[in-house]
């Protein structure tokens, strides 16, 4: 059944299941915004996502406690829509202002943390994901080139290879 003053082709209420359904246009709201908005509601609602048609995501919300009806259903779907819009806009802003946001966050956190002690460096877990090494930068020379023994192109690094490695590692070292 439709909900008062909300477009019936986008929003409907299933009074048997006590759930509201909201259809979201993927062209207007990126999936990351749908995820972000959905996540905000999982403490008070059961949230299920589906794709009823191409270019469309359907969000189903049902209350965890009590039954959902009337004004409460309308309020819930309204709040979700506002949150969804906010998340979509935030995701766009985050992309546009990424450099500023990263610079401020990095400065704030590094300023607050300070330099690590020797004990902390010793205990540091270098196997962390962030240190995945797709370019083989952290490998020893022997490890890096031993793999390619059978490859006729595999030779000792040239000065040019060295330069290429430096251009990748330099920005990291500055972090």
């Amino acid at each position, binding site marked *: 059944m439709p909900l008062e003053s909300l477009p019936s082709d986008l929003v409907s209420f299933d009074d048997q299941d006590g759930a509201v359904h909201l259809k979201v246009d993927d062209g207007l709201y990126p*999936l*990351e915004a749908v*995820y*972000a908005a*959905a*996540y905000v509601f*999982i403490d008070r609602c*059961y*949230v*299920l*996502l*589906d*794709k009823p048609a191409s270019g469309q*995501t359907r969000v189903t919300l*049902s209350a*965890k406690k009590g039954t959902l009806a009337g004004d409460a259903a309308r309020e819930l779907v309204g709040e979700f829509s506002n949150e969804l819009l906010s998340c979509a806009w935030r995701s766009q802003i985050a992309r546009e202002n990424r450099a500023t946001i990263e610079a401020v966050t990095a400065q704030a956190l590094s300023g607050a943390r300070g330099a690590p002690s020797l004990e902390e460096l010793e205990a540091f877990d270098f196997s962390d*994901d*962030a240190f995945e090494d*797709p*370019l083989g930068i952290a490998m020893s020379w022997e490890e890096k080139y031993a793999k390619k023994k059978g490859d006729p192109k595999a030779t000792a690094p040239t000065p040019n290879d060295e330069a*290429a490695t430096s*251009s*990748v590692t330099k*920005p990291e070292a500055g972090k």
Partner: protein
Amino acid sequence: MIELRFHRELYDGKSVDEALKIFGPHASFEQAEETAHWIVRLSAADGAREKRVAGELSNYALGLTIAAQAKKLGRAEKTTATAKQEAK
């Protein structure tokens, strides 16, 4: 019996599996697959319990999917950043 349909483009399969493991003791589950969906049919002692387990399982699978997605995005961005550095 409640049927949950997890769309493959929206849910991470491993996350759905993980959620099933967690909620396994609370209901009996049957799994099936369709082209676009992973399907979970669950039955519990009574209707209220069934509804609750279905809801919690959905939320759990969604939460894990979002976490997995964020990790993937982080990796993709890292790779893009590395590629940009290389291009310089």
